[in-house]
């Protein structure tokens, strides 16, 4: 059962880092323009750089 002492904190840390990542993604606007990102990939990058 001592494995729990390792696994539980690990699960919590992973969960928390996922949550922190989501908060960060929201803060920097990853979800602001969902359609745009999907379309940008189609733009040719050979324009004036």
């Amino acid at each position, binding site marked *: 059962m001592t494995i729990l002492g390792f696994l539980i904190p690990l699960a919590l840390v992973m969960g928390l880092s996922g*949550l922190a990542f989501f908060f960060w993604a929201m803060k920097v606007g990853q979800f602001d323009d969902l359609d745009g990102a999907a379309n940008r990939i189609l733009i040719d990058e050979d324009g*004036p750089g």
Partner: protein
Amino acid sequence: MNAIVPPPAAAPQATPFPTTPPAATVDSRFTVPGMRCAACIGKIERGLAAVPGVASARVNLSARRVAVGHVPGLDAEAIIEELRRLGFEAERAADNPLARDSGEQGAETKRLMRALAVAGFGMMNIMLFSVSVWSGADLVTREMFHWLSALIAIPVVAYSGRPFFASALMALRHRRTNMDVPISIGVLLATGMSLYETVTGGAHAYFDGAVMLLFFLLAGRALDAAMRGRARSGIAALLGRMGRGAQVVGDDGAARYLEAERLVPGMVMLVAAGEALAADGEIVEGSTAIDASMLTGESDPRPVGPGDPVHAGMINLGNPVRVAITAAARDTAIADIARLMDEAGQSRSRYVRIADRAARLYAPAVHTLAFLSFCGWLVAGAGVYKALTIATAVLIITCPCALGLAVPAAQVVAAGALMRRGLLIKDGSALERLAEVDEVVLDKTGTLTLGEPRPVNLAVLTAHTGPIALGLAQSSRHPLSRGLARALREAGVRPAPIVAVSETAGAGMRGRYEGVEVALLRPEVESGGLAVDLLVGGFRTRLAFADPLRPDVRETLAALHAQGLRTSIASGDRVEAVGVVARELGLFAAAAMDPAGKLALLERRAAAGHRVLMVGDGLNDGPALAGAHVSIAPGGASDVSQQAADAVFVGERLMPVALALKAARATMRVVRENFAVAVLYNVLAVPLAILGFVTPLVAALAMSGSSLLVVGNSLRLARAAGGKEAA
């Protein structure tokens, strides 16, 4: 595969515009309704970045916006002009009240999403412990797991529960009760009881139930908020037809730009061809034709000369004129209509949404039930602790998880499907009211018809002259040019590269193509009706214009009739003009109606017990749109109409209107099914809870089961409302 990936060092240079501004820049935002694809993004970002003074341009395709960083010297008009040269109609976004509104909406959605994420995190981790407790962990292990659950649950409840606690407090402060009161009491009681269990080393902790309840309810709220936010931003992007300002001639004869709200009577404004008037006034110099369809619904341009009154919102189609302002800002005819609308909109705000109607019955019932089971167990001889546990179980099990999801889940799915078909719904209550409609009143100009002139004899253009006409027409903002350009583009014509294009206001466009003089001019000899002449070399082609019916008017009306709806026309246009359309479509029509008249007509129908859907675009429809039981405006409508309407449809087809009614009815059917599921669930679960058989495991299973059932049932709507759906 990895071999073809370019070295990472090359990536930053690939950015099509410099991201670091060289000097201090200001940010301006523009709504560009016309951009739809990757090519548009590239064209706008590269095109604007090439303009001197522009440091950066970034497109947001979802919001149909462009954020431009530029030097302070470059004014917004110049950027709009650049966008137009790139082929996109644009409007400044900053002075748009709805745009700010959508920003607030976004903030609310974000808050709810964060609360939902936290609740989700808490739910999963607590479940981890709960599952092991259910599967038999006991003594020290169970106690430790309960403590860990408490450690997670208490901050999660404190953070994610805030929207409910705040709303419940607000309701209690006004001595009312709403759905959030039993939710808050349930969650707080469950958390408190579980904490007590944990401290005393008891067997049952409800942390999982409390957090799961929050998660499902927040999911419902977030869906609701996201739907409102999305529809609003779509509408904000479509806004912008009215004069926001004017070139005012000063004492020294120089013209400078003034915002509409800073105009005062007595000023003289210069109105160029194609510009919308920003204030009421009287023409002092020049004569022209104006498009008054926004105010009167009249489709033909009206000739005006010195001394004639003109109103804000009208569009100058001909020559530049000078207009002495007689009324500005709050005193214009438009403002009067706005006031009329405000009053008409009051009746709408009395509508009670179905979820609130359900809550009104549900909340007191839940309170009573929980309280009665508490008293009942006390009387039956159980201790306070046992009675309180059971009362909490009743509160948690009856808490409207499925009920909270029943309405928003169905409405979000339906609204999403309708949005892909070109109809933006502002909020869920609009869908509910749409489902009750039994009569449809349609405006003529801009609703049954396209509301803009289109060439009627495109066939006279050849493979040679067609591209020339498009090349000329696309550089002008004049309604005839725009109508021509659109019709040609739809016919698959590619523009010819015209050089040295110049526009003479009121006369037309001139340019050169392959060394030949080409021009698109107003006919020198008036021929009755709208027309332009295309000159290629010395060869003259006459193009006639008319305001055609939308392509699928007949199918739409047939679809409406098939749903058992009465339809009629109410137009501000002349009797003859309306008569032609009414006879063609076989509809009863009322013509020459002013805004108050339309409103009165709707009130008569409402008094006769009918629920009327008003479809209209013009400013003269504004009060009727606000006063009708529910209303829809086309995307080309005036700002005011789009704000007054509950929904906006984009594009040239009218079918989204019929589709919306069908989808609304399907939605309400699903909502009722969802309610039935929720009620059935309660009928089964509540007796168990009252009798004291509900353990945390049963509560968790029952809640997720009913919630999934409701969401699954709602997802069926995507097919019903969307027809064939690729995405």
